[in-house]
């Protein structure tokens, strides 16, 4: 799907002719192209640009190619500072944000592909619907059993309790970790994946949340949680330096510590009561 055979097709720019001066620093990029209108087999298209007149990041190169060489090249981008998560893609075999990765000049072409094992809408744009639905299924908002009294202010949270959220709340939902996980490749419909599991744990670890047991019970499932085998691609590629693998370890520990048989009926009730809550096949 996303890993195509290398057919190099040098691209001749129509609008600008490039002649490389002695001081230029040419760099070739081999970029995955897929045209949904033609639905032909995807291929890697080569572009050659001068790094001297280009910004330092991979995203700068993509924008330069789109602006000056081939306006049909399509990719997501927004903030260009690594906080929105739009430009997640696979660069030289590793997932990351194009806006945070420096171009490392090389005699070999820099390969840019969409996030692995995703349905590709066009060129470097993946379909992340499943990921977003799975994120919704873990109910990422504060859940309380009591009602705030009229003059109550904020829920108090000690600095130590707040520190437990560090390393998890910063997740930008870029899906680099999700799509780097072989387990998620083989079971995207059922396994929740590193980002979603880390966010599930973020709410479990939040001292203000009162549905901790229900949240633990919800992920305690052979497919949702236990497809994680500690492969560690997630932590390895997180562009924000977060550690989903560790969060999953803590999650598994807390599940094991807290488990009671009452969870079975708790879950049955929830599934019956809340039919809208996605579980299982996530694409629809």
């Amino acid at each position, binding site marked *: 799907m996303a890993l195509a055979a290398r057919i190099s097709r040098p691209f001749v720019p129509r609008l600008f002719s490039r002649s490389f001066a002695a001081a230029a620093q040419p760099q070739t990029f081999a970029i995955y192209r897929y045209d*949904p*209108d033609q639905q032909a087999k995807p291929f890697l298209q080569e572009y050659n640009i001068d790094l001297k007149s280009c910004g330092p990041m991979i995203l700068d190169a993509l924008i330069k190619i789109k602006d000056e060489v081939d*306006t049909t090249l399509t990719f997501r981008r927004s903030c260009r500072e690594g906080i*929105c998560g*739009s430009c997640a893609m696979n660069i030289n075999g590793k997932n990351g944000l194009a806006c945070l990765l420096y171009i490392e000049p090389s005699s070999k072409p820099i390969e840019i592909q969409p996030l692995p094992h995703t349905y590709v*809408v066009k060129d470097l744009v993946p379909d992340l*619907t499943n990921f977003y639905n799975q994120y919704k299924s873990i109910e990422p*908002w504060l859940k309380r059993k009591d009602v705030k009294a009229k003059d109550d202010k*904020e829920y108090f949270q000690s600095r130590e309790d707040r520190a437990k959220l560090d390393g998890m709340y910063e997740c930008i*939902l870029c899906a680099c970790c999700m799509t780097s996980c072989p387990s998620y490749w083989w079971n995207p419909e059922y396994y929740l994946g590193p980002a979603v599991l880390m966010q599930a744990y973020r709410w479990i670890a939040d001292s203000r949340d009162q549905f901790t047991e229900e949240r633990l019970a919800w992920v305690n499932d052979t497919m949702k949680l236990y497809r994680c085998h500690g492969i560690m691609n997630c932590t390895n590629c997180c562009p924000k330096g977060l550690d989903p693998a560790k969060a999953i370890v803590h999650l598994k520990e807390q599940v094991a510590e807290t488990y009671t048989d009452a969870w079975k009926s708790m879950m049955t009730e929830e599934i019956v009561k809340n039919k809208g809550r996605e579980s299982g096949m996530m694409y629809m």
Partner: protein
Amino acid sequence: MLSRLTRPAANAAARLAKSVRKVSTTQIGGYEVFDHSYDAVVIGAGGAGLRAAAGLVGHGLKTACITKVFPTRSHTVAAQGGINGALANMTEDDWRWHAYDTVKGADWLGDQDAIQHMCRLAPEVILELESFGLPFSRTPEGKIYQRAFGGQSLKFGKGGQAYRCAAAADRTGHAILHTLYGMALKFDCLFFVEYFAMDLIMSDDGKCLGCVAMCMEDGSIHRFGAHSTIIATGGFGRAYQSCTSAHTCTGDGSAMASRAGLPMQDLEFVQFHPTGIFPAGCLLTEGCRGEGGILRNSEGEPFMARYAPTAKDLASRDVVSRAMTLEIREGRGVGPNKDHIFLHLDHLPPETLAERLPGISETAKIFAGVDVTKEPAPVLPTVHYNMGGIPTNWKTQVVKDAEDTIVPGLFAAGEAGCASVHGANRLGANSLLDLVVFGRQAADTTAELVKPNSPPVVLPKNAGEASIARMDKMRHCSGPIPTAVLRRELQVTMQKYAPVYRNADDLAKGKEAVVEVMKKFKDVGVSDRTMIWNTDLIETLELENLINQAAQEMYAAEARKESRGAHAHENFPDRDDENWMKHTLSWLDKPHVEDAKVVLKYRRVIDQPLDKEMHHVPPAKRVY
């Protein structure tokens, strides 16, 4: 084909179809058009859009939220510093002091009724965000941590620095947007993600009936009929060469309103944030200075003490940006070309930096190669925010003239709107507050006017025809000027002729140059002819929106013969309350930029508060 590309929105729509909600189709201009009907439609899913959408669903209204990017990619996510509110967690505090600071920060161009509303509601909305799980930083007592921020004082400016900016480290915008997205998920809001809204649908008698949008996933056109349309599409920072704004900040909703014949307000007021990284343009929050950071010139002097003796580095942003520009002009800039300033954080304890400013520490490392615990970061004033936008009253209802005539069915909130709480200059951490307060207000005002499950809006048969024809024309245009080239020309023009300091000469040249760009738009060329995810086409439509807004900005700037807030006019260095304490209203006399001319009028500033809970703040000399 659609079945292969199912979307949660389409599927939710399918599920909704069971509740007698039919999506019908027609053929217009050779395109298949899907018609939807809702009680309310929100365009934009940033802070204001998400809060509006969640609020509307909370009121029981059938709501659709249209967004051209996935909600958490909206530029709200990049905000860093915090959200102001008189919670009084650090010192005693009063929302009236906050309101006074805001009126002064706006250089008396803000509408005091809207400012009162915003500041009075601030503690409530912050607590509401916290109750949805926002991970605010905490004080030792476990309360929400509040930091010092620019232009914030106690006791109406006489009590020293106020600590009222509630923060989540230096990722408050990220925390707020993700919390609001969680809130929207909890309320089960219906999103139309990666749908590019092209134009408003207006009735013949000037009512807003909805909007027409293009689905990027398959190129289909969608008309959304709604009793209430809320524009929350943000600003147009990308009209400038150097800005902290995302690539997506192209003023789409504002330009849509402009094409519908509605005025923009105060577009000449563009905020230059003092500390954008040089040369990358990425933002280093004002919170750096809030936690003790200091700006120094080439002589190592903390020069802000000279320009703003009381507030120093935490003066209002326009004051700091001007000070930095003057220092550079007078030859005291740093670096090999003496063209920027240093922001010093190296005197702060590393633990403070790690706890309060971890995000910018990372950003400075990546984009400037600097370790802020050891060395200063290179910064320059960078375009950051648009104080102006679609004029509304304090209830977010759009007004269309100096008499405050309301446009039925149309609302604007957030940076796209101009209530006007920020007047001629916005205080830091007031924008995140603006989003949540006026996003909520848009929902509340709509709920007052629209009943849940109202009968569908009847769209005129050919509604959106002009839009579709325009989009079709753009898709097939093969002029000699590539979109990127014309966009660059616009950006260079704005950066050159309307920077921090403006003068009569530059502004006159700027007007001519921007008119050139407007005319050249008819020669733009698009190479991608496909219908699916045609970013070439989308960027061209966005360029039209940028030109639409930038032209009005340039004309408004040239016309304003005074200096106020962020508009610093070298030929008229003083504020002129007698002649110029008024809002600028600007129109394009035709919908398309290549044919249009800018028309200017003026509208009075609302200087009286909403009610007796706050005193009117009379104009005074603005000194920090």
